[in-house]
């Protein structure tokens, strides 16, 4: 709040005039800095309609430092003339004076002085006039008195060129009475209080307006992780489609369930040390590929490379039932790959998997169910590419049309489990199993616009990103 005394003085002045007044004039007449008046205007404006003030700007001419000197002491050329005695003065002496150089050339062009180059003892200067009219000084004095309007534009510009005058813009307020004008100020309340409500005093009080441009205070709350939010949505989609959740809480798996049961021969590249994490310590416990199958190899414990190992266990369990019943299973959990890491690959990621087992399921059924699944994710354009996978035949990569990238991008893998896998488990002939899988990280990175997976998963997560991430609606 500006100085109350000044504010009240200002109000009294406004009261006295009929039309309004200029803040600049008020400052001049009160002899205070214009900025102080501007402060008073602003604080009055914040009170509501006490006054109204329109900002305006005016231009006026002002003397420069040199201009002020001339107004006081006369122009350089006039001073040259007055400093030359009757007997003249050597040119060299004149040039030593502060105003000598400029004054000499101007006085010469005005023909107020003459130069005798041939004078004995060097060039000498003599006056040619006794009385002169110092027009430059007169003009500057006019401007100084605020009567610049009496000068012609040409004259002002010429003086501006000589750097004696400058044009300045002054911002000021045109102050008039507001609809609630009063010369006394009531202090505004900032907030409603319980006392005001109890006493009813709020009815008389004025409240300071809120600034609706500012942001609110962030709520002090916890946040769910974006990847887990997407996980919850995928889980929801499977549940909506009638899929039962598989127990995938076993990161450590035997090579048997991870590879052998899924028809991946023991020399398969995926079983290389390079791709799979093997566990140290003691090991626990169908030959169309025509190789020597080693039980030790099947018993090696590993960190599962896919959740399909769990699907295989579940299908085996299903086959042990007295009577086969159709099932739909899903899981979303961590898998591990001993691979080279980069901006989009980590050694562990989440695999989403769906499996349906029933009599007579067809490739058309698989494509149909994939359509329904991806529809729920907001993906409607799908097409399928033949692919290779050791435990499914046919195998299809699922592509969706990405409207942003304007191209088809791979969104998942799918297929029908091979009979070589199903029959040894004891599933009845005629039962087919269709399945598909995708990673959780990729759709999450796309959804939340994250380019580096380390900012999303793991301890290097950017917590601000977690705090700021919106709810997950996959279909919008």
């Amino acid at each position, binding site marked *: 709040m500006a100085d109350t005394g000044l504010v009240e003085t200002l109000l009294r002045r406004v009261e006295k005039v009929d039309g309004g007044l200029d803040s600049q004039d008020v400052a001049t007449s009160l002899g205070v800095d214009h900025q102080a008046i501007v402060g008073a205007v602003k604080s009055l404006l914040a009170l509501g309609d006490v006054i109204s003030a329109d900002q305006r700007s005016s231009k006026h001419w002002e003397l420069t430092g040199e201009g002020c000197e001339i107004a006081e002491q006369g122009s350089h050329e006039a001073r040259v003339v007055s400093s030359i005695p009757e007997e003249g003065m050597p040119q060299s002496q004149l040039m030593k004076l502060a105003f000598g150089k400029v004054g000499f050339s101007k006085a010469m062009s005005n023909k107020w002085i003459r130069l005798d180059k041939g004078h004995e003892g060097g060039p000498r200067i003599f006056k040619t006039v006794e009385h002169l009219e110092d027009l430059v000084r007169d003009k500057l004095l006019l401007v100084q008195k605020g009567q610049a309007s009496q000068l012609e534009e040409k004259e002002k510009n010429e003086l501006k060129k000589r750097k004696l005058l400058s044009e300045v813009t002054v911002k000021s307020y045109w102050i008039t009475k507001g609809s609630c004008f009063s010369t006394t100020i009531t202090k505004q309340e900032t907030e409603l209080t319980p006392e005001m409500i109890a006493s009813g005093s709020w009815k008389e009080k004025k409240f300071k307006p809120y600034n609706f441009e500012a942001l609110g205070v962030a709520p002090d709350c916890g946040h769910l*992780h974006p990847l887990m939010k997407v996980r919850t949505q995928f889980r929801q989609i499977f549940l909506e489609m009638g899929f039962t959740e598989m127990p995938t809480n076993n990161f*450590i798996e035997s090579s048997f369930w991870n590879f052998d049961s899924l028809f991946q021969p023991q020399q398969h590249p995926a079983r290389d040390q390079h791709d799979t994490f093997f566990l140290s310590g003691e090991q626990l416990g169908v030959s169309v*590929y025509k190789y020597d199958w080693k039980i030790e190899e099947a018993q090696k414990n590993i960190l599962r490379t896919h959740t399909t190992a769990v699907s295989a266990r579940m299908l085996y369990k299903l086959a042990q039932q007295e009577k086969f019943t159709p099932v739909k299973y899903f899981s979303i959990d961590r898998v591990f790959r001993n691979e080279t890491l980069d901006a989009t690959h980590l050694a562990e990621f989440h695999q989403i998997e769906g499996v349906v087992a029933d009599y007579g399921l067809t*490739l058309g059924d698989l494509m149909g169910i994939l359509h329904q699944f991806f529809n729920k994710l907001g993906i409607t354009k799908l097409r399928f590419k033949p692919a290779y996978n050791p435990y499914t035949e046919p195998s299809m990569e699922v592509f969706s049309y990405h409207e942003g990238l304007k191209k088809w991008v791979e969104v998942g893998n799918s297929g029908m489990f091979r*009979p070589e896998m199903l029959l040894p488990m004891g599933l009845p002939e005629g039962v087919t199993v269709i399945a598909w899988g995708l990673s959780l990280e990729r759709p999450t990175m796309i959804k939340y616009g994250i380019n580096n997976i380390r900012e999303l998963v793991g301890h290097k997560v950017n917590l601000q990103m977690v705090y700021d991430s919106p709810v997950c609606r996959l279909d919008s």
Partner: protein
Amino acid sequence: MPTVSVKRDLLFHALGRTYTDEEFDELCFEFGLELDEITSEKDIISREQGDTKAEGASDVILYKIDVPANRYDLLCLEGLVRGLQVFKQKMEAPRYRRVSPASSEPQRLVITEETTAVRPHAVAAVLRNITFTQERYDSFIELQEKLHQNVCRKRTLVAIGTHDLDTISGPFTYTAKPPGDIRFKPLNQAKEYTAQELMSLYKTDSHLRHYLHIIEDEAVYPVIYDSNGIVLSMPPIINGDHSKISLNTKNVFIECTATDLTKAKIVLDMMVTMFCEYCEEPFTVEEAEVVYPDGRTCQYPVLYPLTITLHESTEHIAQLLTKMCLRSEVMSDGEQIEVEIPPTRSDVIHACDIMEDAAMAYGFNNIPRTTPRTYTIANQLPLNKLSELLRQDLAAAGFTEALTFALCSQEDIADKLLKNISETRACRISNPKTAEFQVARTTLLSGLLKTVAANRKMPLPLRLFEISDVVLKDESKDVGARNNRRLCAVYYNKSPGFEVIHGLMDRVMQLLEIKPGQGNGYHIQAADDSTFFPGRCAEIFACGKSIGRLGVLHPDVINRFELTMPCSALDIDIEHFL
């Protein structure tokens, strides 16, 4: 997935027409291939080594095509073209024939007893009157390399040797000798070396050094000689220089030595079927006889088509299969189709593989999409259901969810938490690439503390939680370990905030409908735990069982995780509440 790079113009010439990049991409998609990249040698060099190195390199357009891992028959230009031409019904699938030499005995490869110890199998064949051009020759060499990398499992299972038959004379002997006794001039070298010298020579060879380990420690090394004692090759390392093939070679002797006979037969079939189209009599391969130590003999290549009978009836399916290089005929009963699997299609092992090809020929995307009528009721896994519900309420209690790695260093779960590794029941990984993946985590705490450390610039306090699995050794499980679902939370601020973390624990118990108190309720009692500040740790008991701990972390733990503020933590096993 192997990638084959072929010259675009050469490919289009062989296909008899040109395609736009989009059209060719579309054709690949239908056929189960992927046009991975369009590039040139110049591009590749300039990307890998800079523009200056690339100057003068060829700017012929190359297509890099991803081929499914089981389709060895598509690993070279010849195979790709043949597959696509038959698919587009531009040509009939060839029938490969094994023939006897016109005027002499077949070439013989005699295997001696000594090979049993190191690399027991060998097969061979001859490509007679072949015409190489520079492109064909390059493709021939490239296919060997591709097969070596894929089906041959980096030469461990099979190694291929190709020789100019006119420079050597059979019968050939495949034997094994002590490395000191083997001496020959290897491919592209100026002088002779013993096998021992070769092994040290190739130690620094960027390509060959990767194969040395296969035989390095054996007492004897495999070697093939001709009847004059000339060394053809020392598999799986290097061929002899004497018999190397060139553009002018007319007759090629191909041998494959192996630890896996099935794979050796496949590899030999691939080599001969892919290139026999350049023989004087196309699609014929001259047989070679392999003599085993016990006197048995065998003729190679196998080349016999496999026959599979499909119990499908339509003529249409038979037509579709023919498009996929699978000659098919509807049998007289009209109910079955007999399908002939050519030697190039070693990936076909069951009727379902054939049906996939039929579906591909029909076009996956032309199959009507249907909804299975399978009726099921969905069930959540109780453990996951509980976790989901608790997560929501922990966030509502002001804690933010972290998601940390299940793998970590041994230090993270032991030294840094002032614990001894032996008391952690941790499962150790035997082949970690970096120290970040030494063990499966036994606690969520270290992951949360690392998350705090990585976010020190964030405003205090930091309140984090995670509900996830740790892995503990458990002899009662078939794999000797089990997952355990834990709830862990930390509070990091200028003051330890034990009361905050204690309050969170009270809230969790309230959510789980457990009241304070002994017996069926919950209570905490002072406990000693090296991770926590002495006198500031309590054990949590619920329904009479110990379920976890809470307390103020030990200053040394704070330091070891590169933190500076006091921190309190809660860690409980939620599987008790199922």
